[in-house]
């Protein structure tokens, strides 16, 4: 048992955050700092005809204005590839202000730089821009006729079509079939801190303080767009006010900040305004999904066909995948998953927490609930019965736990007493119901080799470093624990440093892979250094440990002791001082398993919800939620619980509140602020319980930690919708499930 790993320790960055001493990237103060502000297009389709800068320049305090007429051309055209792959990772294969074309509402058409933010805003308002515009195509309704089937997604990284067996034949022969169509509104991320970049040039060397989920991706992307060597660019991020996918890719404002700083020969801070955050870092796209499920009378699935239709940009075949979980979580010989796209006047959509999995599982898990009723089976039994021991390639799970999560959840939630009859439990104006859904989120080994460094000083203090970004997930705390555990030192002598490209590489913490890959590199760095020190001691004839086999030495609180006789030993500090060494350090690296690792790789979980539905007014109020998850090794249960609980709240929000749409006349997002784009407030948040099921995993890394950032959201909305059915007898095929959707019987269909 490690004295630190797996302990529910408080955040090491807590004091910095609550006292305001932690610096976010928009709080970096530099001598001569100038303020940049993006001006977004106020048409969604067309071109910039003219930009008259006279009044703006006359406003005073303006250092410079970038438009398509004077913005430098990018050195290399951006190519969209997810940042997890470790490549340059622009959010779309497009960079603005290179010509006069306008592809989407809010596309940057100018950057104004002034001596104050207010001055920049004033000058920006005085820019006289004229456009030629045409009717935009921005919604599914606008473009349905022009839909096409995508071949690949994510810049070619993923096939868009997944097929096995004979789905049509199997559906025709199934005893029971389900065929449902769903409509889902778009979502925006809305982290508390909008995207912000501070850029400073020192002759040819660029430093960026960027609010990001991965400094390395920023470095790679900006270097490529500007055509400068990686060695000339350093990216720093100490604190980030949330990401949720909006900072997983590198959006144009980051490079524009660097261009603006070069243009005005001063450091520039460029922050997105809240409304701009709806048009600058992608979104979860509006989508329609259709699912057909076939099953035999005894409840075995025979076929699943799941398809998605969504709007993408002019530049990329982007869709959050709708089939990665549904093809694997239940054994089914006949499977077809496909993605249909419409090219429209939007920016390229992007990762939004549980990207793909949250909505795909809503479709699948509400269909499974329908199936359970058709078959008169308990929905938990139906799921357990169909969950196989292997994935669709016949590979065993690296670790499973789905059935245990469902059963444990059933016990804790009180499922056994449930009467499945819908629409019969009343409580005042409310109809009450409960629902369940399964959750799964993939473990994706797309990243390159991960590295970390550990150093012990000769006073016994330690530094562990890797280039991870702390965007609220608790990485500083969890990696301090991993480092302390690996080195065998106490937490209070160890400092964990992150958020800087000058530190050893780790890839952007996206796709719920952060904890897995960072902990593996940090663990390996720490144990390498520990082994190095122990080897030094046993070979040092002045050491009390001299002559022992290294395996007979363990380290506790910075002291190496003989496991044979714990009174024999010495501290790291003693060893280093005696040998006149100021410090000792080691690099550790971790190479992820290959993509064709013969294992099915997922974090599994189960979601339960109880709702009250106003029987006249259709308003859904969640009463309690329970999530049970099997993420493998839990590095810090307190942090893990926060992550999972946050994910479940995102699910609640997606289920009931969050939905954006594009105004069809203007092509502009209808909601662009937190007054109108609703997310839950405390009063919406019910009693939420998070539980863990322990599973050992020796495939996913030396510590066996799988991801938890996103699985908490998967299935949460479906459990709520299934509970709404149980309460009212009405099936919900639309998100969010607003009052009118519930009153009118559930939408789509």
């Amino acid at each position, binding site marked *: 048992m490690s004295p630190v790993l797996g302990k529910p320790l408080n955040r090491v960055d807590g004091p910095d955050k609550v006292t305001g001493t932690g610096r976010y990237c928009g709080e970096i103060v530099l001598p001569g700092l100038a303020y940049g502000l993006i001006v977004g297009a106020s048409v969604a389709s067309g071109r910039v005809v003219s930009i008259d800068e006279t009044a703006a320049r006359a406003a005073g305090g303006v250092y410079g204005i970038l438009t398509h007429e004077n913005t430098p051309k990018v050195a290399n055209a951006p190519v969209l590839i997810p940042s997890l792959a470790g490549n340059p990772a622009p959010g779309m294969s497009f960079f603005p202000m290179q010509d006069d074309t306008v592809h989407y509402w809010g596309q940057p058409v100018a950057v104004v730089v002034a001596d104050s933010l207010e001055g920049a805003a*004033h000058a920006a308002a005085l820019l006289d821009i004229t456009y030629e515009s045409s009717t935009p195509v921005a919604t599914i309704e606008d473009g349905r006729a022009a839909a096409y089937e995508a071949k690949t997604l994510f810049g070619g990284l993923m096939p868009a079509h997944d097929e096995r067996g004979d789905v049509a034949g199997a559906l025709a022969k199934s005893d029971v079939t389900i065929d449902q169509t769903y409509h889902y509104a778009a979502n925006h991320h809305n982290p508390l801190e909008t995207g912000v970049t501070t850029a400073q040039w020192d002759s040819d060397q660029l430093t960026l303080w960027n609010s990001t989920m991965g400094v390395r991706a920023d470095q790679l992307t900006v270097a490529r767009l500007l055509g400068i060597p990686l060695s000339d660019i350093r990216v720093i991020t100490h604190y980030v006010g949330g990401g949720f996918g909006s900072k997983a890719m590198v959006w144009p404002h980051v490079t524009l900040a660097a261009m603006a700083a070069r243009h005005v020969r001063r450091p520039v801070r460029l922050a997105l305004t809240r409304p701009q955050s709806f048009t600058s870092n992608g979104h979860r796209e509006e989508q329609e999904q259709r699912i057909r499920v076939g099953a035999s009378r005894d409840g075995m699935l025979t076929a699943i066909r799941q398809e998605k239709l969504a709007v993408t940009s002019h530049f990329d075949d982007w869709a959050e995948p709708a089939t990665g979980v549904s093809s694997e979580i239940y054994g089914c010989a006949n499977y077809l998953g496909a993605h249909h796209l419409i090219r429209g006047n939007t920016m390229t959509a992007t990762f939004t927490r549980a990207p793909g999995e949250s909505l795909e599982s809503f479709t699948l898990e509400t269909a499974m609930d329908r199936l359970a009723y058709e078959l008169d089976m308990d929905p938990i039994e139906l799921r357990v019965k169909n969950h196989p021991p292997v994935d669709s390639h016949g590979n065993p799970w690296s670790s499973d736990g789905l059935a245990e999560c469902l059963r444990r959840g059933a016990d804790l939630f009180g499922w056994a007493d449930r009467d499945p009859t819908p629409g019969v439990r009343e409580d005042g104006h409310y109809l009450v119901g409960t629902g369940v859904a399964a959750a799964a989120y993939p473990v994706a080994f797309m990243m390159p080799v991960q590295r970390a460094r550990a150093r012990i000083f000769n006073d016994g203090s330690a530094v562990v470093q890797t280039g991870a970004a702390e965007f609220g997930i608790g990485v500083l705390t969890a990696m301090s624990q991993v480092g302390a555990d690996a080195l065998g030192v106490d937490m209070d002598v160890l400092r964990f440093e992150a958020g800087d490209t000058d530190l050893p590489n780790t890839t952007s913490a996206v796709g719920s892979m952060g904890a897995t890959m960072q902990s593996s590199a940090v663990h390996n760095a720490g144990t390498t250094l520990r082994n190095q020190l122990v080897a030094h001691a046993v070979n040092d004839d002045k050491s009390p440990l001299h002559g022992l086999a290294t395996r007979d030495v363990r380290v506790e609180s910075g002291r190496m002791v003989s496991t044979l006789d714990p009174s024999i030993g010495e501290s790291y500090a003693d060893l280093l001082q005696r040998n006149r060494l100021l410090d000792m350090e080691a690099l550790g690296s971790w190479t992820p398993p290959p993509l064709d690792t013969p294992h099915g790789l997922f974090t599994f979980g189960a979601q339960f919800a109880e709702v009250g539905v106003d029987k006249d007014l259709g308003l859904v109020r969640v009463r309690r939620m329970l999530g049970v998850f099997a993420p493998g090794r839990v590095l810090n249960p307190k942090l893990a619980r926060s992550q999972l609980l946050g994910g479940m709240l995102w699910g609640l929000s997606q289920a009931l509140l969050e939905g954006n749409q594009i105004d*069809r006349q*203007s092509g502009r997002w209808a909601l662009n602020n937190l007054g109108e784009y*609703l997310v839950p*407030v405390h*009063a919406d948040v019910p009693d939420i319980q998070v539980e863990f099921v322990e599973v050992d995993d020796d495939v996913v890394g030396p510590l066996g930690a799988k991801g938890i950032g996103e699985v908490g959201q998967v299935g949460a909305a479906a459990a709520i919708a299934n509970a709404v059915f149980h309460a009212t007898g009405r099936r919900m095929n639309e998100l969010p499930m607003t009052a*009118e959707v519930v009153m009118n019987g559930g939408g789509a269909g």
Partner: protein
Amino acid sequence: MAMRPITFFRAGSIDDAVAAVSANPDSAFLAGGTTEIDLLRLGVIQPTLLVDVNELPLTYLEDTEGGGVRIGAMARMSDVARAPRIVERYPGMSQALLLGASEQLRNMASMGGNMCQRTRCAYFRDGQSPCNKREPGSGCSALTGVNRGHAVLGTSDHCIATHPSDVAVALVALDATIRTIGPDGTNTIPIERFFLRPEDTPSVEHPLAHGELIVAIDVPNVPVARTSRYVKHRDRVSYEFALVSVFSAMRVDDAGNVAELRLALGGVGTVPWRAHRAEEALIGRPATPENVAAAADAEFADARTTPMNEFKVTFAKRAIVRELSEVSS
């Protein structure tokens, strides 16, 4: 985000405030600023002079002859909501205040400012889309746009924006009076004449002259209001404008008939909506669910809806039936 150079003047007296605004056509009063500063930043309004009225001695709450209450225009929403005489005499008004905005906002927001708050119509607030209220004659983007939150009563072909206030719904039900001092002296305006429907001039929301300052709101003695209630229905449990809200105060006589009824609705009208038709339909009759439903039907007989907001009619009728059934039982 729009920023412009602006002059700020803190008025020391009512006369100074009125004189300063009257003298400059591009000026506006600034109270708590919770509407005004938002709209400035959004570029929706572009005054060049802000006249701050926060120092004026208008924060009082006092009894009037006849048992009513006079509320100073600068009294803050949170103070009014918790004032014992409001809680006792007009509990529905207190509830309406407490269900509005958030505690932080209510600590800043004034009663006078609340009467003048602007619609939350997103096309109005974006400062760019065609909008007759912001820019007369430019058109109404909401008519065929995203209009789920828009009004179904009191609309016109030129504007369908919902009036957002909660407490104003209570005040129209209570027949309050707005007292003003303007360049031409003092004035009293019955509250239902204070809120103007859009008709063909949606940009004109009140009968106030430029520079006319609200100094107080008089709420008369309304005994039936001692049992008044306000319920607010919305998508999220707190901190949101109403989808539909209902203020009601009702007295049933010994024979079981409705003797007195004050009913007003929020979230559905272009002005805080006094449900006169429903009141008339119910007075003298028992408040059975059927009668209430018929009264609600009468109120919404002229409702004009869009595909996105038509649910509000059913929603509001059901909310009225529920509210009056609960009050009468």
